[in-house]
């Protein structure tokens, strides 16, 4: 899976793949093997990067992921490919996405549009809730709603198509 990491104004694309008991981690032309030991109910991790031992404390808030390494705090944001695209597209628009997919798994909390309804770009489509976080999804294009695939209260998975726009 590909992740986009923002740290101190820098953007990095990181590729993660399961590899034996750990993960292969690719960044640019570098690849490391990382073995992950879980400590204290997930507040801290013992990492072995190849054979290098690094202890990391973790604090989460939304997409924000703070790492505490050797006493120092690194405030990062980690986004999946879709979230990253959604974010980078926002503002540029033009031919935006006509197939609106769930950028995270969650519960559908509000469906603001109906099939056949005419909508404008930027109009709220639905709200997705996960981990106490609500995420309002806006239309990236103007048009007519062809399909609403889920009902309010239903659970949707990452990548599920929720709304299609003509």
């Amino acid at each position, binding site marked *: *899976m*590909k*992740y986009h*990491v923002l*740290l*101190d104004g*820098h953007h*990095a*694309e*990181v*590729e*993660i*793949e*399961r590899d034996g008991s750990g*993960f*292969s*981690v*690719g*960044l*640019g*032309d*570098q*690849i*490391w*093997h*990382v073995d*992950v030991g*879980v400590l*204290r109910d*997930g*507040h*801290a*991790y013992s*990492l072995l*990067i*190849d054979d*290098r031992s*690094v*202890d*990391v*404390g*973790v*604090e*989460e808030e939304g997409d924000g*992921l703070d*790492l*505490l*390494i*050797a*006493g*120092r*705090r*690194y405030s*990062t944001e*980690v986004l999946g490919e879709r979230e990253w695209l959604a974010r980078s597209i926002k503002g540029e628009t033009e031919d935006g996405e006509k197939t609106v997919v769930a950028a995270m*798994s969650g519960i559908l909390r509000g469906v603001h549009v109906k099939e056949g309804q005419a909508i404008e770009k930027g109009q709220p489509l639905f709200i997705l809730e996960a*981990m106490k976080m609500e995420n309002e999804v806006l239309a990236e294009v103007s048009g007519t709603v062809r399909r609403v695939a889920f009902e309010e209260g239903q659970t949707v998975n*990452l990548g599920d198509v929720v709304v299609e726009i003509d």
Partner: protein
Amino acid sequence: MTATRPITKVLVANRGEIALRVMRTCREMGIHTVAVYSDADREALHVRAAYQAVRLGPAPVGESYLRGEVIIEAALHTGAEAIHPGFGFLSENADFVRQVEAAGLIFIGPSADAIEAMGDKIAARRRMIDAGVPVVPGTADPVDDHETLMAEAEKIGFPVMVKAAAGGGGKGIRIVEDASALLAAADRARSEAQSSFGSGAVYLEKYLDHPRHIEIQIFGDSQGNVVHLADRECSLQRRHQKVVEERPSPLLDEDLREAMGQAAVQAAQSIGYTNAGTLEFLVDSQKNFYMLEMNTRLQVEHPVTEATCGIDLVRWQILVAMGEALPLTQEEIRHEGHAIEARLYAEDADHGFLPATGLVERLDLPGGPGVRVDTGLFEGMEVTPHYDPMLAKIIVFGRDREEATARMARALSELTITGVTTNLPFLRRIIDSDRFAAGDYDTFTIESHPEDFSARLSDDRIQHVSALAAVLAHVLRRRRGFPDRQGSGGFSGRRSAWVDDFSPGEESS
């Protein structure tokens, strides 16, 4: 002189690590302890470590730890014969001491008169001058006319500082290099003082170039004995609060140390001082020393003295309060090795030392040879905005300064705390800095040389941390049940060496 009064139970009128510190010695002496607590501290370590505990009131200090009458009531109710004030709060409040004594209780500290004598800074200055203790040269009183200004400035010797008598916070202060600039500077200071404080009165004080803050621990008993327990170097400060202390000071030679020790004993004797006290001095680059003020209580940094002389200062405080003579004479007090203390504050050192709050999630404290930790921290503790941001003191001891410094670096590397922002990275950068290694610092160093303790992110560090952040984000998603999808085949590189060692300063690549 004084008859011995036994103490079997002590009320500790404080919280956090210092309350715990006092209770530890009490326990070793077979003395029961009474804790006092605010509502914010019901589950605090000092409450749990005590034999008894009495609630004072809501979290704000005015409604809890500063309520002297309630504290005295608690001592009487629980049958404590004595009150230990710790530091801060009521420790230097002469009225409180008088109330404690009026209630028939022992105050573990100096007399109310001694506290009062040293509490009024101008009166204390006059007393010290009379006792022959060097103080920072100056006029002390406001100076009005140009003629007297010039005469006094010549007497003090340039450079001098023109200071607003009613001032504070650095306003109305002018540094004057030579006589030609004096009168214009005084006028400007006067007008600035007038507009800022409503009074244009100014006075003169010698300007000390890169002074070091070095203090002497003294101890007096009710038999009239006074000894000193040598120096502590406390120049590393931010916002006038100490961050790292050590003993012996890398600046002092034995002659200077002895001269300062003598002056401190002289000062204490001149006011008939009993119990623990500290004389703070400024030492300039020519190694002249000037008394700054006296702290009439135990200091935060007392453990560095304990480490090098093997004396439990709180034990001595209690013995002296019982009326016993000091256990050792000046000649019997010996110091060995080197000790350093680092103060862990809940503050963001990279953003103006702003205080931080939060719930302590994970806590690992350092251990092993030569390491002492004094703290009230525990997992699940909430760091609130009500109290001092100091969370812990890490004290190390080694055969020499080099071993102690390496040990402190090691100890700090073992310390982990999550859930609240602390100055830990800043402490690590100080200890790892060339300046600290060279002992080359003064009271202005942290503020005037931030680059020496700065945190820069190298490109390598950014890449490495980004990679780890992605791995951990991935692991966290999996732990929540998100599927572990197949990779998109985006690997274009090859196995690489991991070069980052997460050293606290700038890392190599």
